[in-house]
């Protein structure tokens, strides 16, 4: 099979394009998609490159179909994925829910755009609630919130592996800025870096003759009695809670003696990182904490950061109106630290927005 990345090399890419290259490098077999800004270039690059590496693509009639075709393909044992945004993410909640219930290794890239409704095509962090707990289930999902193109590359490869290993729908949560921004990153072949690609196997269309050494496979996601569903949901929850500790990822620095901890995720964490450095230079003891997995949330780690720092204030900054704050509060219930927030829904946040807010609350 033609190698996608023949030698580890620095390259200059846009975010969407990074997704396409990383998916190829991860051995993805097929992409299903539908046009929606700002993720279109994922499709543009995948359709240009896929034939060269024997991969496949279908533009479906809409996002609902894109989600369900991915469910079908992964049931058949192929590495399938999709990419969408905003209203498309809303439409995909139905197939995402099916993937939760049937433990399907669906992988999806979400480039957040302004909401609600058609909102803007540009940028936001307003799909946090939808991506972590959307649908009519309990949020059996794994959600990585990336901030840099290197992370987009790394977590696209990791996303496929995690989805197939732990068998829960997995999401790379980016945004319109990351989608279109250009920056350098290191492209690599996973195996060169010692990253083993998780094997795939079908749930239907198994090899062998039915009745001779193999039984027919009957998959379902509907039950007759409440008690039956109760058993299924309790098992799903137990399985998810058992693997959560292995999946949780976060970053933190300067919390040891922080008076105020700045809590951000995704691209806003880059601004928070700059803000903390600038504040420290001005003698203000600011700390930096950034969940990389929004689901499962690093709640224990955040509690520890709060405890060891003795900080008096936790400042949450997000390009939405409280979705990240609500997610955080439910995870650190009982903490008595004062919580301040900086909401800038659908708008980029830069370091001095955070610096000014810190000064106004301290």
């Amino acid at each position, binding site marked *: 099979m033609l190698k996608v990345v023949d030698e580890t090399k620095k390259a200059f890419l846009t975010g969407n394009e990074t997704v396409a290259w990383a998916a190829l490098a991860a051995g993805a077999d097929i992409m299903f998609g539908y046009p929606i800004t700002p993720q279109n270039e994922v499709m543009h690059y995948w359709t240009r490159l896929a034939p060269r590496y024997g991969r496949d693509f279908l533009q479906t009639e809409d996002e609902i179909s894109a989600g369900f075709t991915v469910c079908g393909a992964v049931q058949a044992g192929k590495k399938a994925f999709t990419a969408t945004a905003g209203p498309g993410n809303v439409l995909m909640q139905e197939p995402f829910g099916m993937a939760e219930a049937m433990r399907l290794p669906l992988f999806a890239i979400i480039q957040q755009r302004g909401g609600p409704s058609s909102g803007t095509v540009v940028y936001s962090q307003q799909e946090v609630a939808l991506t972590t707990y959307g649908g009519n289930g309990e949020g059996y999902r794994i959600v990585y919130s990336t901030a840099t193109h290197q992370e987009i590359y790394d977590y696209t490869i990791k996303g496929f592996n995690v989805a197939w290993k732990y068998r829960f729908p997995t999401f790379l949560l980016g945004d319109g800025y990351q989608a279109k921004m250009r920056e350098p990153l290191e492209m690599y072949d996973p195996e060169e870096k010692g990253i083993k690609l998780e094997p795939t196997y079908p749930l239907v269309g198994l090899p062998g003759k039915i009745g001779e050494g193999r039984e027919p496979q009957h998959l379902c996601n*509907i*039950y*007759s*009695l409440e008690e039956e569903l109760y058993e299924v949901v309790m098992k799903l929850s137990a399985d998810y809670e058992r693997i959560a500790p292995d999946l949780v990822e976060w970053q933190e620095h300067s919390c040891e003696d922080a008076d105020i901890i700045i809590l951000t995720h995704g691209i806003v964490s880059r601004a928070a990182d700059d803000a903390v450095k600038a504040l420290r230079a001005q003698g203000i003891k600011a700390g930096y904490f950034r969940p990389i997995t929004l689901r499962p949330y690093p709640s224990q780690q955040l509690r520890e950061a709060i405890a060891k720092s003795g900080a008096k204030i936790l400042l949450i900054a997000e390009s939405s109106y409280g979705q990240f704050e609500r997610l955080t509060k439910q995870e650190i219930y009982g903490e008595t630290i004062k919580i301040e927030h900086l909401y800038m829904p659908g708008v980029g946040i830069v370091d001095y927005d955070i610096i000014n807010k810190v000064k106004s609350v301290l």
Partner: protein
Amino acid sequence: MALVRIALAGEGGQGVQSVAEILAEAAYNENKQAIYIPNFGLEQRGGVSIAFIQVSDSRIGAPKFNKADVVIAMSERAVGRTASYSDSNTLFVYDDGFDVDPADLPKEAKQIMGLPAINTANNELHPRVFNIIIMGAVIGLTNVVTFETAKEALEHKLGYKFEKNPDLRELNFKALEIGKQLAENALKEGVAK
């Protein structure tokens, strides 16, 4: 009157749900609190169908319950299916015509009764009124409504059929009466045993 919890179970098409509905309506007509909820699994099409009825003078807390005061299993499959709703003060009723594997019977019950409802229906009345006999049995076991109110509710429900065919009314009321008798006798025998 304290809360009475009744679970009726049988095959789809045996008229389990209609009996429950009539009983609930009768209780309502006596200004009692009544809740009836079917266990609408995917089994409307010929599976075991369960009806949960609760009657009380005061507001009823939840539409379903884990343990019943009276369980009536109207088909062989329903016996095993409803055994879990029986505990030490449950009257567990099934038809003595079933050949029931003892393991399917409830572990705990105040009294387990086999009623000759099917046999009575087929031989003395008409197979179609089997479920009305069961309705009579419920009244016999629980007095959840008076016999008169039950007849009125039956009339209200099936009146249009009775008009067309008056001896149907007579057949149904007879079935109700016999059902009540069967249950009361079984209750007495059980106590005597």
